[in-house]
């Protein structure tokens, strides 16, 4: 097969590009799920998210607000380069939410959501590592 095995882009630019792609994907996912949990009336929410039927409204709204905050934190501090270290902190926070979510679902005997928790949490940890060690974003 005629695939070129030489990298075609500058490696350090590739890392930044790759991390931005991961940050945007995660921000879109958590932004949508977070907003859904924050604004949907409680009676309608279990149609979309079954576990909310058995949880207090405060917990659901709090989780949603935390996810929204994390989504904003993945993009905003890095994009405006003001306190850019907040971006890896946001990623660590989202990974913690996913770790707690995995425990919560295992406790309820629900195994189906676990792959989603794994991929979201794993990608968040990758962003945290990438923005702390691999390709940190300098402050202005």
């Amino acid at each position, binding site marked *: 097969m005629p*695939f070129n*095995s030489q990298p075609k882009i500058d490696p350090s630019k*590739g890392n930044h590009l790759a991390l931005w*792609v991961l940050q945007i994907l995660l921000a879109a*996912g958590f932004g949508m799920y977070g907003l859904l949990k924050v604004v949907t009336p409680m009676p309608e929410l279990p149609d979309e998210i079954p576990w909310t039927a058995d949880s207090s409204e405060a917990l659901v709204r709090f989780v949603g607000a935390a996810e929204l905050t994390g989504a904003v934190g993945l993009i905003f501090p890095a994009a405006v380069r003001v306190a850019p*270290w907040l971006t890896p902190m946001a990623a660590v926070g989202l990974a913690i939410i996913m770790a707690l979510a995995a425990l919560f679902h295992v406790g309820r005997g629900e195994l189906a959501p676990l792959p989603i928790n794994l*991929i979201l949490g794993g*990608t968040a940890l990758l962003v945290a590592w990438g923005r702390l060690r*691999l390709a*940190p974003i300098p402050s202005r």
Partner: protein
Amino acid sequence: MGSTLPATVAPSRGLHILLWVVQGLLAAVFGVTGITKAITPIEQLAHQMSWIAEAAPGLVRFIGLAELTGAVGMILPAGLRVAPWLTGLAGLGLAAIMALAVGFHVHREEYYMLPVNFLLGGLALFVAWGRFNGAPIPSR
């Protein structure tokens, strides 16, 4: 906080590490969901994934096998360095499955799964791009 942290990982290794972690996450997720779709009795499967009750069993098994194949393709060709371009193709294949899943779920007016489809498809495209262009794996 130290906002001018120097990168502590060589940039050219960084993209390889990012890609391997994403490949591992995708292989784990698609491996689990693929094998679930491939071997679980259909009646039990419908409890975990609501769309399965209304889909042909042949389609469910086919999607499961395609996801499993993609999961193997994330790891094996790149790990053994035998026909490593297959890993890039596996990334494209998984992205194609996710694009079809988006269309399917939109048609059924199930919007809750869309962020997951976008995230998984986006990560798969990232692997395809990375292994074709950013950090290709040389053949033995």
